[in-house]
């Protein structure tokens, strides 16, 4: 459904150009959940932002192709790109505390994509937004609809972000470290929610994380990135139980720490 080939991203903001992503390839099929793993600075977020069409800085050069429904998102004009953003491609981010506009009501933000991409009336939009808030398991959606971001907890805000990203039923949901800033118990709930959305709506999800155990829970296929390169690519079980790369082994070795922390916390 979406095919990324030979994506290269280069920065020019320092004296020497700096490449952050090399020859990135990815195919995402309908209803598939693919994990993208790597430490910070490995280029995983950059690749995700490029797919979402959110890299538009002047000091940056992008090469390659991101084909979605016959359109190359890397070099199409802004207007075409905007028709996909929020409509066919939804995105959620790492920081639920700052990713919502602090001075706008939750309802306004959740239904924004509907306002931009559909002709629905105000009442219909509100109805859809409240349904969506209910779907992401927020209690009293009518009340949340009228609230402001600062009145919600981090977990609730991330649910709001998911509701806003999913309101137009996008074909792809890009989740850039959606659980990193959350408590461990909330992390599990968000992952379960993403899984349910994927099963109900057949939304393809690109799940970016540095936490291999979460990725293993959620994803069928995993890409491991290091220093801008995809170093390993395979099914989640394969990578989790039989990692080929030294780097992947290290990432897996880091997991028990997380598990112990979970036990201690609960």
């Amino acid at each position, binding site marked *: 459904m979406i095919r990324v080939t030979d994506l290269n991203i280069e920065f020019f903001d320092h004296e020497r150009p700096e490449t952050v992503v090399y020859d990135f390839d990815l195919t995402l099929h309908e209803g598939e959940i693919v994990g993208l793993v790597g430490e910070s600075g490995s280029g995983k977020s950059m690749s995700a932002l490029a797919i979402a069409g959110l890299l538009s800085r002047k000091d940056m050069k992008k090469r390659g192709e991101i084909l979605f429904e016959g359109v190359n998102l890397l070099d199409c004009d802004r207007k075409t790109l905007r028709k996909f953003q*929020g409509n066919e491609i939804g*995105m959620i*981010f790492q920081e639920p505390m700052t990713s919502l506009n*602090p001075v706008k009501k939750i309802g306004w933000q959740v239904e924004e994509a509907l306002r*931009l991409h559909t002709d629905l009336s105000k009442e219909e939009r509100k109805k859809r937004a409240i349904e969506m808030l209910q779907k992401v398991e927020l209690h009293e959606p009518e009340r949340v609809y009228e609230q*402001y971001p600062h009145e919600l907890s981090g977990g609730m805000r991330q649910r709001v972000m998911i509701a806003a990203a999913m309101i137009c039923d996008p074909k792809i949901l890009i989740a850039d470290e959606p659980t990193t800033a959350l408590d461990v118990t909330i992390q599990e709930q968000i992952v379960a929610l993403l899984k349910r959305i994927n099963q109900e709506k057949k939304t393809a999800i690109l799940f970016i994380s540095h936490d291999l155990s979460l990725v293993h829970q959620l994803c069928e296929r995993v890409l491991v990135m290091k220093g801008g390169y995809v170093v390993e690519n395979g099914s989640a079980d394969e990578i989790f139980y039989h990692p080929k790369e030294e780097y992947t082994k290290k990432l897996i070795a880091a997991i028990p720490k997380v598990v112990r922390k979970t036990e201690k916390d609960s």
Partner: protein
Amino acid sequence: MRYAGKKILTMCVTLFAVTLFVFLAFHMISGDPVTSMLGTQATPERAEALREELGLNDPVLVQYGRWAAGFLKGDMGTSYSYRMPVSEMIVDKLPVTITMTLMAFVWMILIAIPVGLYAAKHEGGVVDRIITVVNQIIMAVPPFFAGILITFVFGMIFRLFTPGGYVSYQVNTGKFVGYLFFPSLAIALPKAAMAIKLLRSSVISELKLDYVRTAYSRGNSKRSVLYRHVLKNAMIPVITFLGMALSDMIAGSIIIEQVFGIPGLGRILLTSISNRDYPVVMAVIVCIATLVLVVNMIVDVIYGLVDPRISVE
């Protein structure tokens, strides 16, 4: 309701402090209203008799008490030099100053918001750089000089208005507002320049925040990100400034009234100060202080409306 009560109480206390302070300060500086009232007919005996009549020989605090008691009853006293009730003098000057200040405020907003947004949107561009330089120059020019410059350029060279040709609002409201066009611009320009600078940097720093990226990810254009998402956030620090600027402009109008020959509050304030006409000075001070306090209260309310994180309670 409790909030409103608290605010009004604070206002009263502030007004009391301001008037008492002005009263005391005025009695500390030299000068005697009696001499200017009597002029050439001043003999020591006559002066003394008049002083006794006006109650100027009483202790300062007693005088203040008498003034405050009268004021609370709605009696602002009688002007020493004009021998007419102060309220009558103020009543037709107040609308002049208020109209001019409000016009200046509207000017400031009309100039600052579009220009500030444009400069932020095209940060680093040629126009942005020109705006920054022009801003610096305007900020450095004091309003009275801007007033003189405007009088010279628009009044003498282009003849767009007649300097000194003030028309009272009681005679012709249209011409009255027309005459205030340039004076209010002179008051507004330096404040607008500061507001532009503030709004520009506020928008630029807001544009770097995470919620802007979220807005783009939903398919917003640059324009709608700016107007629907960023503007309200960026206005929060600017609103505080606009409120302060409005208070400043009320006080600043005193000088501009002199430059353009407008008989507003500022004019009677200046003449009464030199005549030591206490009742008039006190009344004008009360008017200006009340205006400033009301403006500040309005700013607080607007602040709470714009930023949901701040509750007015």
